C-alpha cells in the first residue's frame, strides 16, 4: 500500500490512471489503526485492479481539508481526479469497504 504525502498526492491520486483507494487516517486515531490491517489485506487481494494508498492527515491537514476530509477514518475512491465515493467513520466497516471496492474492480 502506497504511503501518500502532500507532495505526491496529486500525481499518485488525482493524475492516476484507473481507480485509487485512499485510506485517510491521523496520528492518535485508534479506529483508523484498527481498520488498517483489513485495508492492507484487501489491498493485497485487489491491488492489481485498484491502487491502494493511505494518507496521514496529521502531516497534510490543508490537503485533507481541501478534499473535504475533516474527520477520520475515511476510505475514499478516486477516479479521473475526482473523489467518487467515500465511507466516513462508522460507515467504514469491513463489509461496506469491501462492497465499495467491488464496484470499481
Amino acid at each position, binding site marked *: 500500500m502506497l504511503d501518500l504525502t502532500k507532495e505526491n498526492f496529486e500525481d499518485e491520486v488525482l493524475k492516476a490512471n484507473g481507480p485509487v483507494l485512499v485510506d485517510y487516517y*491521523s*496520528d*492518535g*486515531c*485508534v*479506529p*483508523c*489503526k*484498527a481498520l488498517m490491517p483489513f485495508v492492507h489485506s484487501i489491498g493485497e487481494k485487489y491491488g492489481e485492479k485498484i491502487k491502494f494508498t493511505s494518507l496521514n*492527515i*496529521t502531516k497534510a*491537514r490543508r490537503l*485533507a*481539508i481541501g478534499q*473535504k*476530509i*475533516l*474527520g*477520520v*477514518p*475515511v476510505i475514499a475512491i478516486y477516479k479521473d481526479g475526482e473523489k467518487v465515493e467515500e465511507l*466516513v*467513520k462508522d460507515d467504514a*466497516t469491513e*463489509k461496506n469497504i469491501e462492497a465499495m471496492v467491488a464496484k470499481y474492480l
Partner: protein
Amino acid sequence: MDSIYDVIIIGGGPAGLAAGLYAGRARLNTLILEKDSTGGQIVITSEIENYPGGMECESGKDLTDRMVRQAKNFGAVIVSDTIVDVALEGKIKHVYGEKDSYAAKTVIIATGAKPKRMGCPGETELTGKGISYCATCDGSFFEDLEVFVVGGGDAAVEEAIYLTKFGRKVTIIHRRDALRAAKSIQEKAFANDKICFMWDTVVEEFKGDGILSSMVVKNVKTGERKEIIADEDDGTFGVFVFVGYTPMSALVGKNLEMDGGYIITDDNMRTNIPGVFAAGDIRVKSLRQVVTATADGAIAAMQADKFIENNL
C-alpha cells in the same frame, strides 16, 4: 461452528475483557466476540486518570490493551465478528455472526454503548466534515481554527481541555447554566484561558456544502437564536459532540427485559433469561465507568461458572 463454549461474551470492551479474564481463570472455555477493535469506548480517550490503580497519563487504549493481554493469558479467545442475531433461550445459546455461528452454555452481553447524536438537521451529513465525536481522531484537523464542544459532562469538558492543544479557541456549548462534570475537571476548564462557555444554549442546525460552514444555536432561556458562521479566513470550524450514549442492545436484546434500551439485571448480572448475563454500560445502572464495567464482567463470569455447575 465448532465446539460448544462454556461462555460466549458479546463485546470486547472492559466489561467483556474482565469477564473473559475471570472466565478463563475459572477454566471455562471462553469466547469473546468483538465487531470493531477491542477496548470499547474508552479507546478514544487520550488520558484516563480515574481508573483505580491505572498508570498516570495513560491512554484508554493502553489500559485496555493490557486487559486484552490479561484475558488472553488466562485462555480467553477473542474473535472478530459482528453479531446479526441471537437465540438465547434454551439450554444451549446460539449467537449468529456475519462470519460464523457460535454456541455456548451461557452468554454474557457486554455490548456497551455508542456516542449519542444530537439529532439535529445537518448533523449526519456533516459528520466527518466538521462534526466529530472523537477528539483524539480529529482534533488535529482544527489546528488554529475555532472549536466548539457540545455537552456538559466529564467527556465534554475533558475533551474540550484536550482540544485546546489544537484549536485557537474552544467554546463549550451547554444547555444548562452549570456543568455536570466532576469538580476537579471543571476547575481545570475554568482556569484554561483558551476555553469559554455558551451557557443555556443548544445547537439547532448545522449548515454547510460538503464542509461545515455555520450553525444555528438557541438560548433555551431567552429563545434567542444566533447563527455562528465560520471565520472567512478559516473557512470552517470544528464541533465535537459529547452529549451522552446510546445502548447497543438492538440485536441482542430479543426477549430480554429492558428499560430504555438498557438491559435489566439483578446484583449478580442475571437477566430474565437463565444462563444469560449482562455486564457494563449495556446494563441499567447508576454509574457507567470502566471500573464499574470491569466489576460487572468479573461478577458475570463467576455467575456463569456457577450456573454451569448447577445446571449443566
